[in-house]
């Protein structure tokens, strides 16, 4: 069960129409959930070990990134920076690097054991993702917010020039939407009909100083994207079945002259009870006791790094 997330303005229930796909089999969903559980353990352990990093948004996006890499994206073996003839993903809200690193490692881009180097000196797993140390899977640095969508658009344009019909995906935070560059990119993508691009917004309603409503309200967010000319979908980002379904759905919306945005309702800290329900765990590390408590809530499914 999920509800479209809409802070104000009319509630839009997305209708999927004739192109609606059948849901993937439950076995696949369960498999993805198992992976996501391990990803969550990795996140907690990485941030705990480094005693710094951003567990809140990472946990919230664990289901989405797991589904994206293990179900949705058409990826080629190995890693080529240029991403020709495969789908590409750009993480704009770079602070949730832990979730991405875990998913990348489990996807085979680099050894899972390397997760233990997160945020330590001489590591390829920088606090915020970067190409600078040559970590496979990462195509651009992020961390300073608001830039990733523009980069994703560039990659999408390149695919268009090259006649490559693969997709480009991008994830942004919701607080991040307060950066004007996001709306520059939104205008551009609509004007240039960049319809091989699917942007997902992590609509957890939280940022550093409090809820987005409190800090700088995004108001009627679906209306904003619609007014900027985007095709707007909704997703419950912590319901794996819905994630898989809406991602499948989104692909069928591509190629129709409009860029696609998925407003993904998540819970910051999802999966760890004491990290949920507020903005507090945006960017702090759990102590030993908290780590233990968190891990007790997350089944080890693929083996800890």
């Amino acid at each position, binding site marked *: 069960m999920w509800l479209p997330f809409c802070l104000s303005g009319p509630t839009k229930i997305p209708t999927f129409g004739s192109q609606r796909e059948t849901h993937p089999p439950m076995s696949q969903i369960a498999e993805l959930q198992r992976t996501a559980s391990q990803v969550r353990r990795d996140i907690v352990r990485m941030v705990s070990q480094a005693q710094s990093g951003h567990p809140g948004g990472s946990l919230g996006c664990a289901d989405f990134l797991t589904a994206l890499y293990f179900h949705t994206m058409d990826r080629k073996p190995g890693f080529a920076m240029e991403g020709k003839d495969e789908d590409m993903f750009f993480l704009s809200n770079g602070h949730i690097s832990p979730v991405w690193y875990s998913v990348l490692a489990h996807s085979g881009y680099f050894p899972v054991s390397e997760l233990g180097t997160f945020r330590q000196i001489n590591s390829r797993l920088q*606090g*915020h993702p970067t190409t600078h140390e040559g970590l496979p899977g990462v195509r651009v640095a992020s*961390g*300073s917010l608001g830039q990733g969508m523009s980069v994703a658009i560039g990659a999408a344009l390149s695919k268009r020039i090259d006649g490559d019909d693969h997709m480009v995906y991008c994830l942004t935070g919701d*607080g991040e939407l307060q*950066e*004007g560059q996001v709306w520059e990119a939104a205008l551009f993508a609509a004007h240039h009909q960049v319809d091989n691009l699917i942007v997902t917004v992590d609509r957890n309603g939280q940022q550093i*100083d409090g809820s*987005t409503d409190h800090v700088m309200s995004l108001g009627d967010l679906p209306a904003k994207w619609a007014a900027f000319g985007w095709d707007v979908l909704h997703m419950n980002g912590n319901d794996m079945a819905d994630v898989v379904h809406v991602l499948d759905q989104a692909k069928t919306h591509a190629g129709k002259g409009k860029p696609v945005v998925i407003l993904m309702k998540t819970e910051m800290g999802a999966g760890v009870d004491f990290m949920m329900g507020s903005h507090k765990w945006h960017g702090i590390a759990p102590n030993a006791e908290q780590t233990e408590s968190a891990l007790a809530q997350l089944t080890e499914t693929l083996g800890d790094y």
Partner: protein
Amino acid sequence: METQTFTQTIFGRFIVTGKKATRDGFGTGLHALGSTHLDVVALCADLLGSLKMNDFVNEWPERFFQVGISEANMMGIAAGLATAGKIPYTGTFANFSTGRVYDQIRQSIAYSDKNVKICASHAGLTLGEDGATHQILEDIGLMKMLPGMTVINPCDANQTHAATVAIADHHGPVYLRFGRPNWPVFIPSDEPFVIGKALTIKRGEAVSIFATGHLVWQAMEAVKTLEAQGISCELINIHTIKPLDEAAIIESVSRTGCAVSCEEHNRLGGLGDSIAQTLARHLPSPQEYVAVDDTFGESGKPEELLVKYGLAPQDIVQAVHRAIKRKG
């Protein structure tokens, strides 16, 4: 203990009294201004806790504006508040206080001569684990190129507090740079902060060490070693990079014959280059740079990074040896 005793002996009134982050000095300074300067208002771009602005915000909520993650807008709003007679203090990380908003500062604040205080935390490598996207090493250079901008990089929490308070009474745009980690406190809490006036930490004959920000402490550690080696060092704290105290620099180098500049900044464009220009124009002298060697930083603990990127006391010791060796 040893350090303290030594410091007491050698550096006169500069005695280590504890450890505190420079941003804490900003937080207390801003809070102090709240009651003395009713025109002071504060803005923050979703980093209240990091900037230590909470005390001000809690006491004067009506004089605080949360702008969310929109730094460009914050700079414009600050310019507007200043136009109408307020003294706005903006708060975000150093990267987002400068590079992110350079054109906004340039046009709406510097060229428009607005009385805005741009207060920037988490400058340099010592922010640590967040890594290079956040570790700006160019902000001094960015801000010093703006005509009319005052650029200040205090060396400890007490000096940051004093600078935060002092700039309220200086009309014009100011860039105030400070950092994240706990750091030794050694400037007396009653030491007056004079914008543009270099602060001599210690007199000496063989070399002039000019240091700013966190590197002042590193230089003090280096001087301890050097003096033990029998090298008499002059150590000057250039807390104000612009306007630069050229007279103090020239006077010192005219006695010592060589210079070492120390900064948590790219070797290009920072304090070192300001000193090099001063010397090139008035008193050509050997100068050695202790600075990041034109590379990006990375994640790690502050102390580890300072070592890896050549900003440790030992690097200053070596730079001093090189500088002295190069004297005529």
